[in-house]
């Protein structure tokens, strides 16, 4: 009974969650290991080779993959952190006094405007385009802005 008291004291109302996680871990662990125990084991070289549609595997599996995935991960970290900062405000906003609501509302409004600018920028530079190169403005590459020469425009006729 002493042990339970300590658990209760340490985890408080989170104790049932701990219990649930324990149960979930046991169930999930059992599912994963049971077939390992119950099933037959007849290993052959062919069976244990990597499955690549029936042909012999070519090359190494851990190979380079598009940088876009990395970019998405970075963007997620940035934007998710920004959302995380909002959560603590969310919980106090509704019950607060009107002065606090207006003050914090303006502050969060500025914050969200920055957020929107960030999102628009990410979309604008093509960080989320999957099939194409990010767009740069090619005209800017020229040393001085000149009109692209056009051969035989329609104006001639």
């Amino acid at each position, binding site marked *: 009974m002493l042990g339970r008291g300590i658990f209760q004291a340490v985890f408080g109302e989170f104790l049932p969650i701990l219990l649930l996680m324990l149960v979930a871990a046991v169930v999930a662990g059992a599912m994963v290991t049971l077939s390992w125990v119950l099933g037959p084991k007849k290993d052959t070289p062919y069976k244990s080779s990597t499955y690549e549609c029936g042909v012999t595997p070519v090359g190494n599996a851990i190979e380079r993959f598009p940088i876009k995935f990395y970019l998405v991960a970075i963007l997620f970290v940035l934007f998710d952190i920004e959302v995380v900062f909002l959560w603590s405000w969310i919980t106090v906003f509704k019950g607060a*006094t009107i002065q606090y609501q207006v003050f914090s509302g303006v502050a969060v409004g500025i914050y969200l405007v920055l957020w929107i600018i960030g999102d628009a920028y990410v979309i604008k530079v093509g960080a989320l385009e999957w099939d194409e190169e990010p767009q740069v403005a090619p005209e800017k590459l020229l040393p001085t802005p000149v009109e692209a020469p056009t051969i035989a425009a329609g104006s001639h006729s």
Partner: protein
Amino acid sequence: MNVNALIPTVDWRALAPFTIVVCTGIVALIIEMLRPRRNNNLVVGVSLFGLLVAGWSLFGMLGGPSDESFAGMILNDRFGQILQLVMVGSCAVCFLFSEPYLREKRIPFAEFYPLALWSTAGGMLMVSSKHLLMVFLGLELLSISLYCLAGMSRYESKSEESALKYFLLGSFASAFLLMGIAFIYGETASLHLGRISEVLGAASASPLSTIGAAMVLVGLGFKLALVPFHQWTPDVYQGAPTNVTAFMAAVSKVAALGALVRFLWAIGTLDTVWFPLMWWVAVATMTVGNLAALVQNDVKRTLGYSSIAHAGYLLVGVLAAFSAPGRVSLDATAFYLISYAAMTIGAFAVISLTASGQHEGTRFYDVRGLWKRAPWAAGCLVVFLCSLIGIPITSGFFGKLLIFQAAFDAGLPALAVLLAVNSAISTYYYLGIIQAAFVTEEGAVAPRFGKPSASLNLACAVCLAGVLGAGLFAGPLIRGMGTAEVGPPVGVPVQDPLTIHTKNTSD
């Protein structure tokens, strides 16, 4: 529930320069987002205007009293304001010559302007706070923007290399800094430098605070390129696009020095531990920077080593101010920072002329014949390099003289002599650059140069005015500096820093 108490009072006046710079960056980004087609003139214009406004607001605050706001997060004192002014000015001058350079190198990256503005804002935050958390925040803002900027030239592998090196070593140093802050917090239960100084002053040095202070010094020393932590400097300076190098050399150094001064003030009572250490670091920084610069054959790399050496000179000034408080002030250091920013940005601005049609060579033989192609810029280069050497009537001379004098006054003659010797050594490689720019061999194929644009000439003129003006009006400038007290903020009962440093532990 009553959360009314949570509404803070916002001291917009103290926050104005920083806010203006950040908002200018955001506006610049929006402009870049909306109409990027033809050129970046509008972005540059808005950025310069914002910097002007920020500088004006800083100038307006110069006379005011020093105070703290945001619960000790923001400090508003004269030292910080002067350093902020230097950073704002450096950023503006960098912007002046960036546009032709970016065009010449075919870098369609107008995000340079917002990123540089945010970086400047980070630097401004670093020097205008006595709260270690804010210092760290500012440092990260400064550094992360610089990591991106260093790798801005995407088709050059050396630029990528420089960005990656800077990022890896920089984050390593940030980790050191953060760890050190954590240690110091563990010892003093505070992140505010005033409080830290108070607590450390009351007790004797403990391992925790010593290790913490050492780690913070490592982190800041990395940013300042002090000698054991200087290895990244030449590579990064060489690889990064030249306008970024100029920006980095000026803003990042000023910011790191400001933070270092504030931190050293806070750990003043531990000076039996750190003073000898920093003494040797200053010696090593000056010597290694200059000796290594002798054997370089790349202008940017040479200037990179020279910036290390200059960090050493600056450190001498700082140490002098700390070892003889009351008699020696930080004025000399602040003055030297101003002149250093002007001359180093000017030198890099001229070097940026070697970019021509996507190609940029900065080796000594790549600047041959600069004199014929761009006489005004080449002439300015001579002045900047003379100032870096320390030849009279330039501000570099007066800066070195003042630091030399300060070191003597503070009873650090060895440092003073080493400074003089190192200045003499440095003459060799600076003259090498001048020679490369002016002497053309018969029959040699002259390298191509970009055409010096009006804005570059203007940038050179501004830097020239800075170098010569600071030299000619050194007296009034020094008298007007008034950074003598980096002292305790109003309202925090801290022992007067001038009485903390009663010992003189050096030589």
